[in-house]
């Protein structure tokens, strides 16, 4: 049996399969189907300082090999999250990555501070794909300066024992530009990728299908985009670890992300169709490594970058 252990910065995980933010709530519902402590970690739905209603319905549209969502970060607020959700996760022995969000830098900082010293929190994932109210609603993750400001502030405010990962958006001209800015601000790693902005129009009503008009596209439809982003960021900032996500549905999908440079992966949209997907994918990945005679997950991380030099230079030269 392959050694499945991996690390995200100094956070040690027994295996590289995590849930994805917004696709597992805070673990409780999935625990009906499998033991959440069996996962590498549970990544919780992005939490903000105050309770948020989220957007009006319809919030979802199915698309080919994907779905579009416009939830609007519905959540109970950090106090209630710590009291109820985090307490439940701790009680059930789940390693926990808390996804935090905000509409201005101070909100991220406030939420990160409230999580200081909490024994159940292994890591923070900073969801910077939120509109920045201080910049006419421009998404933080689409602007290198705004991204680096939030990441720097969170890194300073957060518990030094908790690695801080920046979750980046693929909806940018050059994701490595944002990644480098976050690296300069002291980020400990990257979560790649968030959803792609998309839109569906209902041809019966002749109006946008979602209450929020646009929404985030997820699922296998975006997997090649996600693998490309992991690859590029690994090339640009090789010293920082990556948590990969985007349309992972099988153990082989997970392996692709590891080969591209991710140290662990999150399983998101697949959970909606198959509540046991994370543990199934873990089993499949184990099996796939064994079949290939690979002794440890650490042996495949970033391995695709070691492909023959001719192939790599060709990739670098090819136009986008």
């Amino acid at each position, binding site marked *: 049996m392959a050694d499945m252990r991996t690390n995200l910065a100094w956070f040690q995980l027994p295996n590289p399969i995590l849930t994805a933010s*917004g696709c597992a709530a805070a673990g409780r519902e999935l625990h009906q*189907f499998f033991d959440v402590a069996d996962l590498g970690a549970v990544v919780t739905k992005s939490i903000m300082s105050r309770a948020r*209603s989220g957007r009006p*319905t319809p919030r*979802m549209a199915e698309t080919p090999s994907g779905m579009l969502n416009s939830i609007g970060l519905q959540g109970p607020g950090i106090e209630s999250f710590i009291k109820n959700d985090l307490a439940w996760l701790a009680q059930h022995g789940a390693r926990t990555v808390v996804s935090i969000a905000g509409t201005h830098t101070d909100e991220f900082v406030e939420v990160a501070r409230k999580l200081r010293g909490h024994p159940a929190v292994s890591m923070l994932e900073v969801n910077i794909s939120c*509109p920045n109210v201080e910049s006419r*609603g421009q998404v933080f993750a689409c602007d290198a300066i705004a991204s680096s400001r939030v990441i720097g502030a969170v890194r300073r405010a957060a518990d030094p024992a908790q690695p801080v990962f920046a979750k980046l958006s693929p909806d940018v001209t050059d994701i490595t530009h944002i990644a480098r800015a976050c690296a300069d601000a002291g980020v400990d790693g990257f979560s790649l990728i968030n959803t792609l902005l998309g839109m569906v129009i209902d041809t019966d009503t002749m109006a946008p299908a979602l209450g929020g008009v646009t929404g985030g596209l997820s699922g296998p439809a975006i997997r090649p985009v996600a693998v490309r982003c992991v690859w590029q960021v690994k090339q640009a900032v090789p010293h920082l670890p990556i948590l990969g996500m985007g349309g992972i549905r099988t153990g082989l999908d997970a392996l692709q992300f590891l080969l591209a440079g991710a140290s662990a992966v999150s399983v998101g949209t697949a*959970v909606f*169709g*198959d509540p046991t997907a994370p543990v199934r994918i873990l089993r499949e990945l184990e099996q796939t490594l064994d079949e290939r005679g690979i002794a440890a997950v650490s042996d495949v991380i970033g391995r695709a970058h070691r492909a023959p030099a001719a192939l790599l230079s060709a990739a670098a030269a090819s136009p986008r």
Partner: protein
Amino acid sequence: MTAAPVQEVAEIFAMQKVGEYVQFTVVAPGVAQGFEPGHFVAVAVGGENTSMLLRRAFALYGATPNGDFAGTVQFVVAAHRAGTRWLLERKVGDRIDVVGPLGTPFPLPSGPAPAVLVGGGYGTAVLIPLAQALITHGSPVEFVVGASTASRLFGELVAKRLAGSVTVTTDDGSAGHRGVVTDVLPGAITRIGAEVVYACGPMPMLRAVGEVARDHAIHAQVAVEEAMACGIGVCMTCVLPVRGDDGRSRFVRSCVEGPVFDADRVRWHDVGRLPSDLIGADAMGGGH
């Protein structure tokens, strides 16, 4: 949620055409075990490598936990789009991936209480096992069953056999009273001295049923059919604005807190909107 849901690969035992619908009976002992009226199942569609990622939700029409061999459950499918069409192309003996029982079932009165059950289209299906439970508890039951046209009615004969009294309505008058269920609901409530109304069907019908119940100063427990991505409470897509015990309103999940709601608690006029007094609505400002 009363019973923990399970995921089962269920063999299709029977597919029976009923008007424009198909009634499925599938072998799913784990789902059947925990079944209570109002529960639903979420069914994967399209096969292993499908491009349709999301499950389809179907209210359970019944369950036989201790059948001749393994336990079975029944649900009713109407052709909508590609997902339900795929299901309807299955054959007896095929296997489908089923998660259930899901949702919070219908609350039953603590003692015998006369009830009117109102079904719109195949929404009647979920009311049949409820009627059985109510009758077992000694509650007299009367049905009102409606649809746009006769071929879209479901279960009126089963309902008749169970309850004795069924009033049928169709929009086009092709069966029973020409009109809608709320035309005949007040009469049924008065006739039986109903203390509660139960309903399942399209949202405008549920809202109208709730209004009739309120006019008669009784509660209406209604099962909604909201679009869901997961059915198990993690995706937050199926929310409705609902007033809580504390008098304050929130977006709550139809799949876990529902699908059965007290009609008076649902803010029907605000479905698809973001009322400013909803908890957390104030935090939405500035976003897009």
